[in-house]
Each structure stands twice: as structure tokens, then as C-alpha cells.
């Protein structure tokens, strides 16, 4: 019975996908939306059921479906393991997923391919669930690839625009580069331990006597995979371009679920990373630098979704920073709170874009506060959360990260704090430019402004509430429920941060930093009424940062153009040469054949000659030799 329920958790979205693929167009938009949402909601309900069960008993549920690969001493089977970590992920993936499905019913209502959209979304949820509940690394990799595929399909959903297709390709290819690293890591691990199952790997590694050098290489390769999927330096440029997809896609995939897969993978394999301090240092540094760089780019962006994209990259950097210090539950906490407020922010921005009739430039917005009160209120709550203002959830999770950084590595703490201040600044810049002062758009747009329908505002409200109260799962005082819940997974001793004076001072410093950021934004944009310059007016440093430090152009020149040149060389030189070679072989055979054909020239005289000569030779051979 339990096995069947587990299978339903996994397969309900897949059945939703199939239903929408085959019947969606005929059955109409209402059916498509309802099927998609219900499929994910079923998974969510069952996840809640299992979560309650595991929370109570503390024992994970493991289901083996069938043997997949059995080769000499390497055995791999398809199994599902619902332990504390995967259930946590399942909860917020399916939960936020169903909210976003609900939102999309209204948001994508005018689109003619709505059934296709829901089928892709369901497929994505299916693969994400696969990634999360797999019992070995290979199943996770299947899910990994699958979510990458769905990301490509969804980013390029409005395929008639070539720029969107390019963005989708960019996302997929950058993911692929990371996946190569991931695969190499899997191969190394597989060859070292002859198994990829989590439980067996953990037993083999913690038993001791492990070649740390090889393990370090494997861990590094795995981290490269995480870099690609979770958009860290240098594989981050796909995420801002991925904003070409519809907003629900950005909310689901590029804020709450897919990009957290890297963190999930590292948390899952924490026993590997615990043994490789070098890789952990690298993770921490990469995370911190990413956080700072992305935040700096976000300061100057004018597209509302791009600001949020860079904000996502920056927050992911903070999560990796925490992972780099071995503080897995801190990172998980921030993942959860970030999912809440980032999804809320994206959905809110979608609501604004919907009202502005697909205008996304903040310089044309303004004064939407009175017209869209619900959107404004929910986004304000989420913005306060991301800026780290107590008692919102973001404060608790970010504070934990900063505390861990302070105790481990002061320079990285400074970088993280700077990134947080910048985050507060640009998020409030976004709020002031969008919702305050006067409307800067055209008259036409002003007429169409309206609050979004309830199907869109309901998820916003739910997510805002969660952003507000989500911090309770891991309060620094009185024993964190999250730490206690995840304790069976992590081997390191996790001393609760003893709340001494240092901690309180640090908390105050963090809050102060946030308030400084808000204040600066207030002074410049609300009081001062500044509006960012138009594209052609920008100069100097601002221009460089606005153009993302020309990193994309750098990649283009350094990597893309040489590879294209190589491909062109192959196409224009090598391939014709090879076909010429084949032709030459052919003509050689032809020539030989022609030579042979000259014997048969049809002249009887020659035949008679041959006849007589043959006869004489035969005679000589038989009788004289």
C-alpha cells in the first residue's frame, strides 16, 4: 500500500503531463489548467502525509522498484527513499509548485498553447521529484537532466521569438557544461566504491580509509555540476537570460526549485564534502564572490525580472557560502525561506507585468501602489524578508549564514555582509521604482492597469504569509526544529549557536546593514525621485556594470567564437576532404574494374588467341612438365 502511495507521489505529475499532451488541446484550457494543478496537488497532499509520518517516527521510507544495472560488482537499482531531506524538498517543491500552477491558470489564460505549458510544467515537477527522491546518484542525475530539459522547453516556450530560443539554448548548454563535471564525479565515485547508492556510499566513506585525493577530485567535479545548475560563477550567465520564459516558469524553476538542485546534491552527499576541506573552501569562496558580483550587477538593472534573477544568483551564492562551511542545515533553511519570498516576488512581478501588458522596464512603471494593493502588500512583505528585517523569515536564515561565516572566515563574512546590504538596496529600489511616486508609462498603459484576478493574488497571499512566518522552523533560541529534524542526516556535530554577546552584536550589525541599504534607496528613489538613465545615456562604471561587466561578450569571444570556428573548419575542410577520400577509393575500384574489363572487348580474334594459348599451356603443363 505504502509503495503504491509513494509511486503516486512520483507519477501523478507524469500522468498530468501525459494527459495534457494527448488531450489538452481538445479538452480546452480549463481542463488543462485543472489537470496540471490537481496532479501536483495530489503529490503535495501525499508528501504532507509522508512528512508527518516520517517526522513522527524518524525513520525514512525506502522503496525499491527494480534492479537496473547489475554488472560484476556494480549494482544499481531504481529505488525511492523518502527521508527527512527529500521530504522537505518534496514539500516545498510540490507545495510552491501547486501554487504556481494555480497562478498560471490565470496568467497564461490568453495563450493558445496553454495545455503545452501545463504539460511542460508537470513534466518538470515529475523530474524534480525524481531528482529529490532517488535512492542513488544516477537517479538524481536522471532528474537533473530532466529538469534541465524542461527548463529549456519552458524558457523557449514562446518559440516564435528567436532571442528566447537563444536564451533557452544558452541555459541548456551551460547546464550541460556543469553536467559534464557531474558525470565525471559520478564516474570517479562509481569506480572508487563500486556503488552509487547513498546509504552504501555513506557507509563506505565514513568507514574510513578513503583515498582523499581522488575523493577531492570527485567532489570538485560534483561541485562543477552544482555550479552549472545553480548558476554560480562562472556558469551563471544563463539565469538572467532565462527570464525570457513566462513568469511562472521563472518563479518555479529559476527561483524555488531547479536552481536549488545543486544545493540539494551537496547536502545529500555531505559525507563526501565533509572529507574534502579543500573543495569546501572553494565552494565557500565561489559562493561569496558570486553573491557579491551578482548583487553589484543587480544594482543597475532596469528590467524587473532581471533584478530578481540577479538577486537569485546572489542568494544562491550565500547558500553555497553556508555549504562551504559545512553548515548544511543553515543552507537548507535559507533554501526554504528563499523559495517562499523569491517565488512571491516573481509571482508579484508577473502580476505587475500582466497589468502593464507585458512591459517589464521599471523606468516606465511607478505609482502602482494604489492600483494594485494586494500585489504591493505581498511584494513588500517578501522584500522585507529578503532584506533581512526581523521578524520576517529571511532575517533568521540570512543571519544564520552570516553568523556561520563570521565564526569561520572573517573576509568572507565581510563580502557576504556587503552583498546583503546591496540586496536590501536594490530590492527597495525595485519597490520604489515600481510602486511609488507617479506613473511614468504611456496613457494607453495607464488605462489598462488593474489588480490581478484572484487566481493570481491567492498564491501571492499564501506565499507572503509563509515569508512572514517561515522563520519559525529554525529559530535561534529555544532549539531549532529544523536542525533537530535534519540531525540524522549529518554526521558533524552541530552545536547550536550559543547566543552570546557576539551573536547579538552581529545580529544588530546585520539588521543595521539592511536598514542602511533601505535608507539609501529611500533617499535616492523615493525622496529624491531619481529615475535610472536610459540605456544610451549611461556612462562609465555604471555602464560597465549595467552590461554585466561584459561577461557575456567575453564568453562569446573567448569560447563561443573559437568553437564555432572549429566547427566551421570541420564542416568546410575536414568533411569535404573525407568525402573526397571516399570518392577516391570509389574511383580506384572503378579504375581497376575498367582495367579488368578490357579483356572482354568482344573481338573474336582475341578470344580465339586466348583459346589456343590456353590450350597450349595446358598441354605443356600436362604432358611436358
Amino acid at each position, binding site marked *: 500500500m505504502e509503495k503504491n502511495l509513494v509511486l503516486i507521489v512520483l507519477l501523478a505529475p507524469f500522468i498530468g503531463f501525459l494527459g495534457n499532451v494527448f488531450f489538452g488541446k481538445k479538452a480546452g484550457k480549463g481542463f488543462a489548467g485543472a489537470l496540471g494543478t490537481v496532479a501536483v496537488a495530489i503529490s503535495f497532499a501525499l508528501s504532507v502525509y509522508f512528512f508527518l509520518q516520517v517526522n513522527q517516527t524518524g525513520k525514512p521510507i525506502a522503496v525499491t522498484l527494480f534492479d537496473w544495472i547489475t554488472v560484476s560488482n556494480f549494482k544499481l537499482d531504481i529505488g525511492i527513499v523518502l527521508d527527512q531531506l527529500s521530504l522537505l524538498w518534496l514539500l516545498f517543491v510540490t507545495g510552491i509548485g501547486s501554487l504556481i500552477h494555480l497562478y498560471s491558470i490565470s496568467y497564461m489564460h490568453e495563450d493558445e498553447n496553454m495545455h503545452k505549458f501545463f504539460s511542460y510544467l508537470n513534466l518538470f515537477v515529475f523530474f524534480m521529484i525524481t531528482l529529490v527522491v532517488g535512492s542513488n546518484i544516477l537517479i538524481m542525475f536522471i532528474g537533473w537532466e530532466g529538469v534541465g530539459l524542461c527548463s529549456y522547453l519552458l524558457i523557449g516556450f514562446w518559440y516564435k521569438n528567436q532571442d528566447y530560443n537563444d536564451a533557452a539554448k544558452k541555459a541548456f548548454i551551460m547546464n550541460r557544461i556543469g553536467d559534464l563535471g557531474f558525470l565525471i564525479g559520478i564516474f570517479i565515485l562509481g569506480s572508487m566504491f563500486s556503488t552509487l547508492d547513498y546509504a552504501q556510499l555513506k557507509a563506505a566513506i565514513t568507514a574510513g580509509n578513503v583515498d582523499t585525493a581522488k575523493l577531492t577530485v570527485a567532489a570538485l567535479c560534483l561541485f562543477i555540476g552544482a555550479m552549472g545548475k545553480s548558476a554560480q560563477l562562472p556558469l551563471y550567465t544563463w539565469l538572467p537570460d532565462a527570464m525570457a520564459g513566462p513568469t511562472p516558469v521563472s518563479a518555479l524553476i529559476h527561483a524555488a526549485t531547479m536552481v536549488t538542485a545543486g544545493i540539494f546534491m551537496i547536502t545529500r552527499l555531505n559525507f563526501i564534502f565533509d572529507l574534502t576541506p579543500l573543495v569546501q573552501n572553494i565552494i565557500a569562496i565561489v559562493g561569496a564572490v558570486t553573491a557579491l558580483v551578482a548583487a553589484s550587477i543587480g544594482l543597475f538593472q532596469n528590467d524587473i525580472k532581471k533584478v530578481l534573477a540577479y538577486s537569485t544568483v546572489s542568494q544562491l551564492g550565500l547558500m553555497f557560502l553556508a555549504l562551504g562551511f559545512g553548515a548544511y542545515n543553515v543552507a537548507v533553511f535559507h533554501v526554504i525561506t528563499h523559495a517562499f519570498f523569491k517565488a512571491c516576488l516573481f509571482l508579484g512581478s508577473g502580476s505587475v507585468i500582466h497589468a502593464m501588458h507585458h512591459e517589464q522596464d521599471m523606468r516606465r512603471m511607478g505609482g502602482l501602489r494604489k492600483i494594485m494593493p494586494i500585489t504591493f502588500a505581498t511584494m513588500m512583505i517578501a522584500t522585507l524578508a529578503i532584506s533581512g528585517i526581523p521578524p520576517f523569515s529571511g532575517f533568521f536564515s540570512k543571519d544564520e549564514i552570516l553568523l556561520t561565516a563570521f565564526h569561520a572566515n572573517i573576509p568572507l563574512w565581510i563580502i557576504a555582509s556587503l552583498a546583503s546590504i546591496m540586496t536590501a538596496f536594490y530590492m527597495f529600489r525595485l519597490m520604489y521604482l515600481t510602486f511609488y511616486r507617479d506613473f511614468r508609462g504611456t496613457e494607453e498603459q495607464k488605462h489598462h492597469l488593474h489588480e490581478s484576478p484572484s487566481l493570481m493574488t491567492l498564491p501571492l497571499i499564501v506565499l507572503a504569509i509563509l515569508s512572514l512566518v517561515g522563520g519559525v522552523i529554525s529559530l535561534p533560541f529555544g532549539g531549532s526544529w529544523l536542525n533537530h529534524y535534519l540531525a540524522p542526516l549529518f554526521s558533524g556535530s552541530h552545536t547550536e549557536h550559543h547566543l552570546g554577546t557576539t551573536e547579538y552584536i552581529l545580529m544588530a550589525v546585520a539588521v543595521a546593514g539592511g536598514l542602511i541599504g533601505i535608507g539609501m534607496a529611500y533617499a535616492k528613489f523615493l525622496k529624491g525621485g531619481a529615475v535610472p538613465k536610459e540605456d544610451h545615456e549611461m556612462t562609465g562604471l555604471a555602464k560597465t556594470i549595467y552590461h554585466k561587466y561584459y561577461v557575456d561578450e567575453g564568453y562569446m569571444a573567448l569560447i563561443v567564437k573559437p568553437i564555432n570556428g572549429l566547427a566551421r573548419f570541420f564542416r568546410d575542410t575536414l568533411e569535404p576532404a573525407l568525402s573526397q577520400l571516399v570518392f577516391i577509393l570509389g574511383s580506384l575500384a572503378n579504375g581497376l574494374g575498367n582495367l579488368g574489363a578490357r579483356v572482354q572487348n568482344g573481338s573474336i580474334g582475341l578470344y580465339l588467341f586466348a583459346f589456343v594459348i590456353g590450350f*597450349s599451356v595446358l598441354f605443356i603443363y600436362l604432358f611436358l612438365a
Partner: protein
Amino acid sequence: MSTVLLIFYILSAFTLATAFLTIYSKNPIHSAIYLVLCMVSIMGHYLLFNAQFLALVQLIVYAGAIMVLFLFTIMLMNLNKEDEVHKPRMTRYAAVIIFILLCGVLTYVFVDTKPIMGEYDVTGQDFQSIKVLGKVLLNEYMVPFEFVSILLLTAMLGVVLLSKKEKSTR
């Protein structure tokens, strides 16, 4: 040198000369005539052997029928005036060489086999008169005899069919 040997030499010379002239002469009619003479000389050889039946058959069939057929065909095709192109020089030399080669090979082979084994025996009885020949033909070689008749019939049919003129279109 006995008379028979002398006759043999004269006949052989005649045979070889006419055979050679058959090939060598330019005019096909001359070639045909020479061939007739060759057949006649071979008939002479048969007579030396006292193979009377064969001699006459040779005359009637070869010289009488086959060569006449040849002459008819030559005249049908009006090959009187001969303007035949020669084969390339190389081929002609090769033909001569082959001729010498073949001659040499065959002679050598036959000489080597030592056909002579002492005295030529004489059975005393008649072995080749037409009576004996007829008996042998119709006793042991009955079946081939009948088949020859069928062969000749088939040949006749074939020839008639092959040389039928197509129905003219006009």
C-alpha cells in the same frame, strides 16, 4: 623407297600445300577450290588405307556437299572481289609464333609417347570393309547412329529458320 611411301609423300605434300594455300590466298573462291583439292587428297589417303567407304563418304559429303555449301555462301555474299583488311601486324606475327609453338608442342608430345611398338600386326581378316563397318555401326553404335539422324534433322530445321528472310515491311 617403296612405291607406297612415295605415293604417301606426294599425297602429303599435296595435302599440306593445298591446306596452306587455302589460308593464304586472297580470293575466297580460290580458297574454296584449294580446300576441295585438300579434301580430295585426304580421300587419297583413305584409299591408301583401304578404307573405301570412308573415302567415298569423304568425297560425297565433304567435297560434294560441304564445299558446295561454302561456295554457295561465298557467291551469295558476293565475296568475289576480295578487299579484306589485314589484321594488325602484331597479331599476324603472334599467329605465326603460335603456329610454331603449337606445332612444336604437339610434335614433341606425340613423339614422346612412342607410338611405335614393334611390328604392325595383321589380323588377316577383314576389319574395314563396308560389310563389317555396317555391322559394327548397327550393332554396337546403334543409338549414336539414330541420334545422328536426329542431329541432322535439328540442324536442318535450324538452318531453315536462321536463314529465313524477315517479312519485309514494304
